[in-house]
């Protein structure tokens, strides 16, 4: 092939441009740590990264909300723990003053304590977490237990995801656990009955109330078990979600991030190629017959 000076010039320009472009690509990868900056760089990786990015956000949200649900259930469990203390004390009083050796005065004094326990229970059952009443069911914006023990919440329970699309109960049904709505025993009524029996020096009534308190203790224990199991489920979800977020991060990294060693090697190679291109050009461009003719 006949080679002209213009071919050499243009070839030099093209080769230098290619070397500089390769250098720029490698330099960008090393500097940004990103291999796929534009969908055209790797369409499959770019498309897959969309799914993993959304999945990562989804798992992060599931984990965060599961943690909040677990925290709220722990608050509910703490309230039920307090309620257990209340019922234990009520049981002690009922056991002690169910004995007819106690007179009306002693029992009236005990009734005052039971009234205090009643108020304590109402306070515990009106516990708020995050600004809402956790024993109110879906009616969580108002006090669920009135001062007389009437329940004005509902028996709806909330559910929170433990995995995308898979929901776990995240609240306790106070209407069932405390008010015994489904054939159980109403704690508030039991405490009221106990107080009334103590005030009226009704030994038989006190002993009847003791049986009811025992049933309430069982209901509350069952409620705490339910809360504990739910907390376990949510803690497990938090752990799983955290692992999933890490996995998704790794997957996104594998798809989009630069292999720094590979990119650095290509950067060095591109630098070498550009250097060689410039050196070759410098030598070739100076060769002309015009310099030799005298």
């Amino acid at each position, binding site marked *: 092939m006949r080679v002209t000076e213009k071919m050499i010039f243009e070839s030099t320009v093209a080769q230098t441009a290619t070397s500089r472009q390769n250098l720029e690509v490698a330099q960008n990868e090393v500097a940004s740590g990103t291999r796929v900056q534009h*969908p055209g760089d790797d369409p499959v*990786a*770019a498309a897959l990264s969309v799914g993993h*990015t959304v999945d990562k956000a*989804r798992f992060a949200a599931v984990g965060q909300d599961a943690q909040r649900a677990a925290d709220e259930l722990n608050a509910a469990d703490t309230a039920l723990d307090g309620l257990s203390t209340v019922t234990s004390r009520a049981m002690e009083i009922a056991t002690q003053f169910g004995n007819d050796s106690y007179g009306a005065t002693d029992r009236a004094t005990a009734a005052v304590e039971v009234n205090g326990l009643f108020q304590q229970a109402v306070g515990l059952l009106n516990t708020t977490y995050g600004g809402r009443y956790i024993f109110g069911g879906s009616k969580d*914006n108002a006090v669920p237990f009135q001062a007389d023990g009437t329940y004005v919440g509902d028996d709806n329970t909330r559910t929170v995801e433990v995995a995308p699309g898979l929901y776990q109960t995240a609240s306790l049904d106070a209407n069932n656990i405390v008010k015994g709505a489904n054939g159980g025993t109403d704690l508030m009524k039991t405490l009221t009955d106990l107080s009334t029996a103590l005030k009226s020096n009704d030994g038989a009534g006190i002993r009847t109330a003791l049986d009811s308190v025992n049933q309430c203790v069982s209901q509350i224990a069952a409620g705490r078990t339910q809360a504990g199991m739910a907390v376990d489920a949510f803690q497990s979800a938090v752990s799983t979600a955290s692992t999933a977020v890490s996995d998704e991060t790794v997957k996104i990294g594998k798809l989009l991030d630069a292999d720094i060693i590979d990119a650095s090697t290509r950067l060095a190679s591109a630098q070498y190629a550009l250097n060689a291109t410039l050196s070759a050009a410098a030598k070739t461009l100076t060769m002309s017959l015009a310099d030799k003719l005298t």
Partner: protein
Amino acid sequence: MDLVNIIMNAGASLGVYRAQVATASHNISNANTPGYARQDAIATETVPAEEVGVNGYIGRGVTLQGVVQNRDQFVESQLNAAFGNSASTSAQADALSTVTALDPQAKGGITDALGTFYSALRDLNQNPSDLGLRQAVVDGAQGVATAFNTTVNSISNSRSAIDQNVASLVDKVNGLTAAVADLNQRIDQAVNSGRTPNDLLDVRQNDLDQLAQMIGARPIPDDHSSVNIVLPDGTCLVSGIVASKLSIQANSSNNNHYEIVFKPSDGTSSSPLKNSEMGGQIGGLLVSRDDTLGKAESGLDNLAYDLSTTINQQSELGYALDGSTGHDLFAILSAPSSAAKNLAVDASVSANPSLLAAAGSATTGPGDSTNLQAMIATENTPLPSNNLNAQQSMAKLTSDFGIAVSTVNDSAEFDKNLLTDLTNARESASGVSVDDELIHLTAAQTAYNALTKVVTTTNAMLDALMKLI
């Protein structure tokens, strides 16, 4: 042959070498001129030779046969298509590589916004009556709307920028076609008067190369010395010495993007050209604008419309904190067209997040999130236009765009390499080698010097002869 004829012949031959030196000088001067084809001053023996004796002939020197261009027609015939193809794919690659709206790691992109929005819904599900979390959902929905607005605006701006580029190129094409028509006339005149206008041919060839690059135009030589110019579909831009014109006009059925209109030189009615009827830069830019970017834009419109409609349908079934129902989360869009641009959060919900329809019943309390959970489930709901969910739709959009860019990048690289090979072949056949020309110059100079010696020697012989008289 007498001595005077020898001097006369030598004098005539000197003119040939002067022409060769002039041609070499012209070649060297134009060594870097685009479109220039190396010229040769062709020398041939002067005939007839003078007959002497019985079987002897004495030559009469050298004659300039002509000055011709060096062009390889086989290479030239392939170069035109290569110019058009390379310009087309390069224009597409350049146009698409600047579109960053669908970059996988772009912050504030649709993918991020979708993730944030559904995360906000999940957070609200944990505490549906919390006004702060309700506001976060509204903000998340606004983020989705903004991401769609921004992304589609970015693509739309790229398409508009292509319009401006095409408009500028159309002006240049009109200038070039007029120039070729004029050159056809001048070349015809020169050829008809028996001359070969090499330099005019070079200028015309350069114009033809540019027309191939700009619009993929093909030259078709006529029976004389003119070339007609046609577009890839056969539309004739230049017929002999008459050039037709192209113009641009807004196309209302394509978001007022420009279309190119062909105005025939015979005054008949103008007609818009289809994108497929053009090649080169203009054809490539129009394909990028209406095919790759157009599909991305309509894909975003469909996704915005389907997603907002699906979420709204579920939202309308739910109940707000005040027990009212029928609320949309997003402002209702009438049709997919321009949906991504117009996507916005419903004004009433935006102003009052308590209207967010989280509850599944009017009678339940504010902690009910039944409908909210159904809204969260819409992230996996297949959308009407493509039976894919929002995340899959976005992945497909990204993939389709990425594959289009990757394919056109590969094509551009291939076409560029092919064009480089062919331009090298053209340069090899038609280009000027300064070294060659210096050698030609030296050869002509040597011959010229030798001929002057012939003249002085013959003249000395004549002097000697005269002294005998």
